[in-house]
């Protein structure tokens, strides 16, 4: 089955991973800008990273037969230094104009601080002023519930927000209902020990239905699995779910969400 991994950090993966992903049916990836495991020393590091995400990684993916799209933003960890983040945000329009960028992401909260929130608001303002799609990272572990609520509250206060153009990512059992109730796309990340597993993601699809759920690997430089979406497909098949239901989650839904971006020009085969 062809699938889309709507959230994966290709810059942290090997060419062998990309070749195997393609063999497993991956046709499109979305790569949000994020934290590379260390804080960057200056804005020029961000510029190079944004170039990597819009120039080099699309080429590596194309060589494997995968269409690559990027998201531009500054991650919550590096958003803490508001003055520094401001310089990075000022750089974003140039990259958002690039032909293979889907919107502003991944942006969000990490420790849910006042500074993180200030940077986040400026990123949301930038996105809304340009009618961009928005991709939100929600915090890990004990901060997730609070951070998700803060993001949802912030969005509900802004009348310009169209829930169909927003994905709230890394949802788990205690946040997914809140996100779906507000009409957003709910991203579920399949991770080995944190976030969700393929089984628990399948549970959430069974409980809430497949309509607004996206599953992704968020594979990066840490413990993660670039083949997690095929594992979800296998888990759904083992449970006896119809192929159409599985395809909706791993292909039709991300296609529908991404297609709202003017830069998404992927042509499905057939």
């Amino acid at each position, binding site marked *: 089955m062809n699938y889309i991994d709507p959230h994966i950090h290709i810059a942290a993966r090997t060419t062998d991973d990309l070749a195997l992903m393609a063999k497993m049916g991956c046709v499109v990836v979305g790569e949000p800008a994020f934290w590379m495991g260390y804080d960057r020393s200056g804005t020029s590091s961000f510029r190079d990273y944004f170039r990597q995400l819009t120039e080099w990684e699309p080429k590596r993916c194309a060589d494997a037969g995968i269409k690559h799209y990027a998201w531009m933003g500054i991650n919550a960890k590096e958003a803490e230094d508001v003055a520094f983040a401001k310089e990075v945000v000022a750089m974003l329009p140039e990259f958002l104009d690039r032909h293979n960028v889907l919107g502003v992401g991944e942006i969000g909260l990490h420790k849910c601080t006042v500074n993180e929130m200030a940077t986040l608001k400026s990123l949301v303002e930038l996105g809304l002023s340009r009618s961009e799609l928005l991709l939100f990272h929600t915090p890990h572990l004990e901060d997730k519930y609070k951070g998700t609520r803060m993001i949802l509250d912030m969005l509900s206060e802004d009348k310009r927000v169209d829930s169909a153009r927003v994905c709230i990512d890394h949802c788990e*059992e205690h946040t997914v209902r809140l996100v779906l109730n507000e009409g957003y796309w709910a991203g579920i990340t399949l991770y080995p020990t*944190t976030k969700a597993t393929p089984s628990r993601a399948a549970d959430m699809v*069974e*409980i809430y239905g497949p309509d607004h759920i996206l599953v992704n690997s968020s594979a990066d430089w840490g413990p993660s699995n670039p083949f997690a979406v095929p594992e979800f497909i296998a888990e759904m098949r083992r449970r006896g779910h119809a192929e159409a239901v599985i395809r909706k989650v791993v292909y039709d839904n991300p296609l529908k969400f991404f297609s709202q971006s003017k830069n998404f020009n992927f042509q499905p085969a057939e």
Partner: protein
Amino acid sequence: MSNQPSPLAASDILDKQFLTVRSKLIDLAATFDRLDRAVADKNSASIDTNLRIVKIREAVARLLEAGPGRAEAIQLIFSLPYDE
């Protein structure tokens, strides 16, 4: 048998194992929910008296008791009895 004390302090073990334990607990909770849902959705018979569920409940209760020897005790819950 002489014992071989762990070189790790309890706080080190907790640091290293916290996320794994947390994830196993959530997996377990999700599995119990899945069982309940299957009974509710399919109107299938209750599994409350199923011997495997009874043993799982017994094991979970044993888990919360003071140690040592929890792993051994839980293994015995899932073992055939042996009459000497």
